[in-house]
């Protein structure tokens, strides 16, 4: 690694930490509440995972809710069934992430040989099956009622069992609210997101990411220089599913509840919207997309009853006017390169090929 890339690594880590530290307070100034900030960070992890598929692999999944909701249910069931007395957050989250990875490997083994609309439909069909199974397995999942009041998982850190629901000490911050608005949950979510961002940044620049991009650009050539394209797509699908499951489990533990809607088609669609609005192939695209849409939803749905319509209009407007998404367009402006202009087109083309 050269000095220049190490310098950019440090800059990246520093800027990301500052933004994550400032975010909930700046957010307060525009009427966002701290709980929503935490949810945004958690959901961003799923969007980042989704973007590994859409942006870097060229696969549009319409079933990622199966990993998101699946992760949530597995975490909740692990707490209720296995650890009612000593609810351990690490175990619940790791168990849920592993379960999502296994589910992704199973579904992916069938799906990654398909392209475009067939891939999207197969993932959708699997997600609907998972939805149906969870809804019917009432003994374990309470069906339509969802799971509530499961044990509050504690985070074992050395000798301590940390309750992430603990608020920080009260320090008034004027227009930026109060330090006590922030619970340890926010700090934990920010740390996990930070690690996920570091991982994705490394992955997209790694040998694996290089080959993934090559396969998206020209699969026929990639196969005939000796890359197993299906294996690469399956690995990307599994990593994507794992991150989405991680996100879903954190969300369930944070909310203290998990509902069948987390497995639904709307949920799957939301990852598509967040990612494209924020920008495919931009590391921060899915994070920004999740933040913007979740914030608007929170602010607007309180005042108007047709939020879904507004969301649809935003989505269409972004596709037509900002095909590189918010982050892609901004980085184009700043770097003066029009490189990402073709990115969405390229993604979609790769997606509809064969």
């Amino acid at each position: 690694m050269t000095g220049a890339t190490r310098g950019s690594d440090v800059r990246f880590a520093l800027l990301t930490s500052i933004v994550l530290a400032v975010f909930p307070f700046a957010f307060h100034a525009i009427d966002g509440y701290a709980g929503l900030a935490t949810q945004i960070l958690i959901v961003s992890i799923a969007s980042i995972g989704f973007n590994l598929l859409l942006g870097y692999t060229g696969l549009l999944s319409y079933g990622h809710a199966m990993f998101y909701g699946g992760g949530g249910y597995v975490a909740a069931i692990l707490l209720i069934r296995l650890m009612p007395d000593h609810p351990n957050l690490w175990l619940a989250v790791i168990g849920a992430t592993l379960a999502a990875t296994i589910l992704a490997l199973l579904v992916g083994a069938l799906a990654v040989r398909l392209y475009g609309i067939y891939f999207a439909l197969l993932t959708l069909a699997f997600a609907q099956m998972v939805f149906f199974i969870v809804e019917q397995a009432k003994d374990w999942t309470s069906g339509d009622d969802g799971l509530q009041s499961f044990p509050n998982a504690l985070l074992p850190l050395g000798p301590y069992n940390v309750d992430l629901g603990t608020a920080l000490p009260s320090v008034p911050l004027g227009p930026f609210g109060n330090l006590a608005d922030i619970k340890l949950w926010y700090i934990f979510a920010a740390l996990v997101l930070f690690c996920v961002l570091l991982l994705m940044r490394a992955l997209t620049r790694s040998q694996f990411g290089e080959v993934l991009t090559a396969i998206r650009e020209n699969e026929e050539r990639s196969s005939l220089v000796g890359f197993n394209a299906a294996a690469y797509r399956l690995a990307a699908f599994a990593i994507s599913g794992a991150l989405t499951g991680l996100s879903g489990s954190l969300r369930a533990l944070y909310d203290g509840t998990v509902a069948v809607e987390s497995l639904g088609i709307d949920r799957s669609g939301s990852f598509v919207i967040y990612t494209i609005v924020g920008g495919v192939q931009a590391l921060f695209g899915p994070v920004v997309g999740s933040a913007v849409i979740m914030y608007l939803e929170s602010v607007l749905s309180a005042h108007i009853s047709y939020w879904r319509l507004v969301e649809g209009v935003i989505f269409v407007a972004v596709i037509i006017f900002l095909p590189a998404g918010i982050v892609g367009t901004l980085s184009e402006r700043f770097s003066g390169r029009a490189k990402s202009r073709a990115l969405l087109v390229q993604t979609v083309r790769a997606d509809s090929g064969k």
Partner: protein
Amino acid sequence: MTTLLETKGLGKSFGRFAANADIDFSVAQGELRAVIGPNGAGKTTFFNMLSGTTAATSGTIYFKGDDITRLSGTRRVHLGIAKAFQTANIYPEQTVRQNCRLAALAHTQGTFALEILRRSDRLTDVDTLAERAIEQLELSSVAGVRSGDLAHGDKKRLDIAIALATEPEILLLDEPVAGMSRDEARKTEALVRKLASSMTVLIIEHDMDLIMGISDSITVLEAGRVLASGTPAEIRANQRVQDAYLGGHSEAEIDG
């Protein structure tokens, strides 16, 4: 000379149409073999079965004596069978160097590697392989250029360089000079001749000057079957080849 690549009774049918049938064929190590034939003779289908992009419907393919008929194209590349396409098949968004690096990377790492943290830019053997391929195809001056911006001839040569960066034992060239200007074609011909001195080359080509000039031996396909096999002189003199290939034109015309 030892046989490197061999087919026995190889055939490919699309429904009732037989694109290839009963092809017995063998290439010796170090040979430069041309496959010629009129349009629609089944040359490209034959090539695709050898490279593994099309599955044979009958017969067997042997590489160094091993049956590789059911192996994927990806596996065959790792055995040492590389192909350059009729229409240059490259990564247009990547530089020429990166195109060759990807092929070299596949060769050194294998079909799959879960290297999600390590970058490839410190793999010196990848760089060595890529640079050698670039030099051999005389692309050094454009190594940093986005390959989609290359001239037609350079794209075709890059496609060969990609194949070469996988360190093949046999190189399949599907019409390497098609669509090239006279000068580009001559330059490419010289390059192919040079490559053939260090490896086995199998070439489909319509340019008769090139074929007659550089081939050690020639196989003629017609209607999906082998019509004749032999040295350029034997093929030139073969009456059946003249009848089939040029509808009975004179030897002089075949010649030039």
